[in-house]
């Protein structure tokens, strides 16, 4: 397969990876977060709006992370403070994001559906010195946006945080045995708030990569199911940072292979469906080996 294909697959899976890490963090804290899709969409809009009005793509990235954090407060307050149902709230938060961003794109930018402008600043590709010289690998791994590299960095950081840092260990305790954690004086609700808000920031970054890295525009409902794929990646990767990475890569490879097969004459609709089918089959395989812990 050619390097350009792998390179584009890497770019395409970054938003999913960010969102899946966000989902994993929440899962480990005992919060079932299905609002990744909507939070990512809010990040897309805030990223584009920030880049447009702030005049710099980094203002956009910051705005996306902050907006994602702020937006995830809805889920945090709803599920933790008010003890509402996480699935109901997640579905509503996702729909709210679709409505809200469509509403805002019209009231803020005065256009319906899609906002794009040649003057809108997007993320520039970075050339990694040294690496870019290596044949094939250089072409695949170099020349991505800074957020792509940040997402790779986020995987070991999250793994070390959950595996070694006292806060990470307490967070896992909160997720696995909330009563036990509480009896040891760990503030359960505060840790869960932290997990959801941090997940919001990660989803915001996912949105920024999608709207300012993969493309440079905002369009209605542009996340198109990526947040749901992230939910599945969390499940498939058992909420482990490296597991989630593997699941996201599997998804990206399925997509890349799909594009490849499209070149060989397979219809585009088959390749659209391929990642979902591959994921489902992977879930069958994994659950055949071990019984999946019910995650509701």
């Amino acid at each position: 397969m050619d390097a350009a294909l792998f390179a584009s697959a890497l770019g395409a899976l970054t938003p999913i990876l960010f969102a899946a890490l966000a989902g994993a963090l929440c899962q480990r804290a005992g919060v079932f977060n299905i609002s990744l899709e909507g939070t990512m969409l809010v990040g897309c809009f805030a990223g584009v709006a920030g880049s447009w009005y702030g005049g710099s793509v980094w203002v956009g990235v910051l705005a996306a992370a902050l907006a994602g954090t702020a937006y995830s407060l809805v889920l945090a307050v709803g599920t933790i403070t008010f003890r509402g149902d996480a699935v109901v709230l997640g579905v509503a938060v996702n729909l709210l994001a679709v409505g809200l961003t469509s509403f805002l794109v019209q009231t803020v930018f005065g256009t319906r559906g899609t906002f794009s402008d040649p003057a809108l600043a997007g993320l520039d590709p970075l050339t990694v010195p040294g690496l870019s010289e290596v044949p094939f690998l250089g072409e695949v791994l170099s020349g991505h946006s800074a957020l792509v590299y940040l997402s790779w960095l986020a995987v070991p950081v999250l793994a070390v945080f959950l595996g070694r840092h006292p806060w990470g260990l307490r967070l896992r305790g909160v997720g696995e045995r909330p009563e036990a954690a509480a009896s040891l004086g760990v503030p359960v609700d505060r840790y869960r708030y932290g997990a959801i808000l941090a997940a919001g920031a990660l989803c915001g970054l996912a949105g920024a990569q999608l709207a300012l890295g993969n493309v440079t525009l905002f369009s209605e409902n542009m996340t198109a199911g990526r947040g749901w794929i992230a939910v599945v990646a969390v499940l498939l990767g058992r909420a482990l940072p490296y597991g989630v990475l593997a699941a996201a890569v599997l998804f990206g490879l399925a997509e890349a292979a799909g594009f490849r097969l499209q070149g060989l004459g397979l219809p585009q609709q088959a390749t659209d469906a391929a990642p979902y089918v591959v994921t489902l089959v992977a879930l069958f395989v994994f659950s055949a080996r071990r019984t999946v812990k019910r995650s509701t």
Partner: protein
Amino acid sequence: MRGLRTTALAVLAAALLGAVLLAATGANPLVAFESIVVGAFGPDGLPDTLAYAVPVAGMATALAIPLRAGLVNLGGEGQLVLGAISAVAVGLQVPGVLGIVAALLAGVLAGALYAAFAAVCETALGVPLLVSTLLLSYPAVSLAAYLVRFPMRDPGSSLPQSEQLPPDVHLPALADTGLTAGLFLVLAAVVVYAVVDARTPAGFEARVTGWGPRFAQYAGIDRPRLTVRLLACSGGLAGLVGAVVVLGFPYRFIDGALITPQYTWIGLLAALLAAASPLGTLLAALFFAALTSGGFALERATQVPRELTAVLQAVLIIFLAAATGLLRGRKGAA
């Protein structure tokens, strides 16, 4: 059980937030709300509201059926689309009134089998239902998109759409309202759901499972069988809704035409709002359909984007879920 007062309070809070949003965009909230109500229920708007309410109410009921037992079917979209494309495929082959019946049955069967497969994924293969229904939804939509682009494509058109069904395979129209006899099919489904839910052991089993899955298991309710059965009913009704839509104007399957109006997701919101109670789900679906159809009138009258009504719908659910949780929490503490 959720009180009427909680619901009323949540509606009021959502309306208040809507008023603030409207005022922020420079519109007069009272004028805006009036235009929503007139647009939804006025003589010009009511037929549109009802025409939109039929698929929304159908999908809401379809998704309410498993929700009654605490099972969330996120794959309504795939079941709806698969039902629609199957109905068209059969309707193009079988002539006459028989064609209508065969097409409707094909829709029901396709949706039911597909949803039952998702249920089997949970009961036999260990993939949570939430995930299996959702993941199976995308391939179904892709399959339909493929079929209307290649094998089933209308040769006389450049759009991704099927051929038009012959005139004798159209559902009878009700006067010139844009409504079809499909209205009665969906109403019948709602009535059947209400009766089964309230009066039969099957409905009771589902409700008990919704109240307490572990108690239900202890009481001897076979959860896997219940899951497959409920999902088959849910998918079957979703497939019927798809069939009803394509057997009405413009009498063909157009790619995306069942997805863009958000029948499934608005239906799911309605079912969630009503905690899957049969009558409540119907009323919530009508309410949401009226809001959506009123949104168009709002846009015409005030230049405020119609998406505002979508925002209000979601906010309403959030308030309601929070309020319900709060009540449950207090009861638990007492």
